[in-house]
């Protein structure tokens, strides 16, 4: 939500593991950017996608539905998805929508 935070999902890492940073507001727009980034990484052969939510303050249901799409795509390719640095309120929201059943949560 802070205008200074870049909206592009950033990523780093080598062939096996990729870290993708979610922005402060996870919605359709930013979710699709993350999705594109994740798909690129998966196509490059990444087998563990780490989505970092350290900057994420607000999440909406459309953004969550995109995350589930990313989890599906990863599963098809045999990759696993990890959510890192998720704020407590966001964890509760992911729980409500059943997202946490499909991913591991971790602190970086």
């Amino acid at each position, binding site marked *: *939500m802070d205008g200074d935070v870049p909206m592009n999902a950033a990523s780093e890492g080598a062939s096996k593991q990729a870290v993708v940073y979610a922005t402060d507001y996870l*919605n359709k727009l930013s979710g699709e950017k993350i999705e594109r980034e994740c798909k690129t990484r998966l196509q490059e052969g990444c087998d563990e996608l780490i989505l970092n939510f350290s900057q994420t303050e*607000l999440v909406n*249901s459309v953004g969550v*539905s995109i995350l589930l*799409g990313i989890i599906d795509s990863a599963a098809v390719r045999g990759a696993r998805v990890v959510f890192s640095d998720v704020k407590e*309120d966001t964890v509760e*929201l992911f729980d409500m929508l059943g997202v946490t059943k499909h991913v591991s949560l971790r602190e970086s």
Partner: protein
Amino acid sequence: MSTRTAKPLLARKHPDKFVGRDAELDRLYLRAVSDMGSGSIHLSGRAGTGTSELLRQLYDRLFFEQRFVVPFYYSLNSRDATAYTATANYLYQFVLQAIAFRRQEPGLIASAPDICELETLSPINDVDWISRLCKACKNEGPLNDERSFIRSSLSAPFRASFAGGFRAFVIVDDLHQSVNLENGRVFVDEMVNIAGRSGTQIVLGSRSRYSMKSIAEQRIDVERLDRKSFVDLAATAAADRGVDMNEQSRDLVALKFAGRPRLLESFLEAATSKRVALQSYREVERLYSKELLEGGLGTYFDDNFARAASEPILRQKLYEALYHTIGNGNERFRLETLRERLGVRPDIFGRMIDILSVDEVLDVNTGAAQVSDDEILRDFLIARHRASTNIGSLAVTAAQTVTNALKRAPKLVASDYRRGAALGMTELLLDFDMQRVPRSLLDYRLFRENLKGLSASEARSQIAKEGEQMTLPLVAHAAPIVDHLPEFGEPTEPDRAVIAVGFADRSYSDESEIVWFAAEIDSKLEADYSLTREWVDRLDTVADKLGYSEHKIWLIAPEGFSDGALDLLAEQGGFGSSRKQAQLLREFLHGGSPAKSEAYEYEIVIPIGEETELIAVHAFEEIARKYAFPPKAVNQIKTALVEACINAAEHSLSPDGKIKQRFSVDEEKVVIIVSNRGMRLTDRMPIRPEAEGDDKRRGWGLGLIRSLMDEVRIESVDDGTQITMVKLIKPSA
């Protein structure tokens, strides 16, 4: 309120649209159906307050909602011309309504069968008493004399109830119309006698001004609807008629017709038939002027005057005479002077004055009168005068009427705003009731030293510890000064300057009698000596005029008083307080707990567009910061708010592309209403149950909102959807 869905029978409104009279209606209904036995009630109200509609609603409810009591409603009507005809109609109406009730055929009442046909419709177990009454109805003339016929017929429902083994509940309305009937008083006197007998249950309805023998075990004065109920009524009535009216216009309309539903509805009816939108003061006043000059409002007053003076030349003379009295400061005039001016016989004039008094055109008292304090009546008299002097030029009269009304509109509304913001001095004084209170709640000097600058909670705890106490008097009666002295009306509002009369102790002796003059005065800073002096002199003058030599003055100014002003008040044995003190005093008198604060409302409209919901979220964050909402609740509300906005943006096909949010915040909760125009939620295609893949992952928004908030209501309104979300706020740990 009843939720019956049947169409109204005698009532003019569906019960769900009958606003603001639930308490009176429930009380009368319970009285009718309970086994409390007999006892009559006299229900009176000012013209146009809806007293008759209340009685018709009572009848409908008794007709549809119970089977034990046979209801009967009769309204005295000037068209009956004589008491005899009115009585014959009364008898017929009773037989008709009783058969309709016993057969549970409401349609029978409107079909108005003749008396011979009615007899054939009576249920088998009612044949005997109905036949007897039908015979009485069929008689061309009274069997003995007119008075005996009237007496016997008016008590027929009770004889019938004895014969038929049921209980009758009789409602006789509009008794004041007796002034328009030949021998009308006989009808009323006989009715009153019957109502006074044991074993009868009668409600007698009349205008407040109509005087009749006190018979009723109970008298209910139906007050005009309070402002809020009347504003609600105006909004509902406009919506029902499809009148396009905004909030400003609604408030002006509610003020103009204050508490008179009949005139309000006539006005809105005109807006519908003339297809006039009421979106500005100008549109309201244009229609109002038109209606006064040549529409329903004018007809209403013309009809009243026509009953008093049927001859047009006499009527015009009456208009002119009354117009000149209001032009002359509306001073009282001698009735005999008016009679001479009109040149009518004393007996005709007496009847004329009776009618004008009952219709609330004149306030009559011991040989003198003045035009009632009624802005619409005054506007009518001015319009009629202008119409007669601008012969052939209705346009000129219309222009004058509408410009004058427009000039007055902002003042009328401003005066209402001031009234709304007033402390409510009358109630405050009546709450005194000999209570011991900390002196700093009245004495501004002590308040300034001990309490000023403290937060509300700090002030409360300081007040609880304060040692210096005083005992307030017991106020037996408190009323605006203008009620005692009408010329005091300017420049203050009625409720802002009050006289309270009572006792300093409970001995209730002459010696302990006290009089307080209390007034709320305006000053941006601490009120200074000269302003205070002006008010003290003013109130002393009022006291002199009213003969109160011993009195105390209590002034309240928003920011309190300067030292010089306080010294002046102290010399008089009076007090000066700030508005904050008065609010704390009220709180203290009500048990020390803070008055339940009203909700604060915030409104924001956002365009539907990329991430515009974040604007709403930011606005809410500011609100949450102001009220120190717990962070967890804030996050949950933000998510729910975003979901509600997405819902509106994605599915509504909104024609104006806007989403409106209203945040209502009080100490216990926040209520958020998100609304938009466009496709209603109920009209949209549901998510397919068999949806798979991406489809299955959508449509969670409403479920999420329900999980995050404490209460959620989703309503389809005429042109869109409204989601109301409530979150209970628990204080931060």
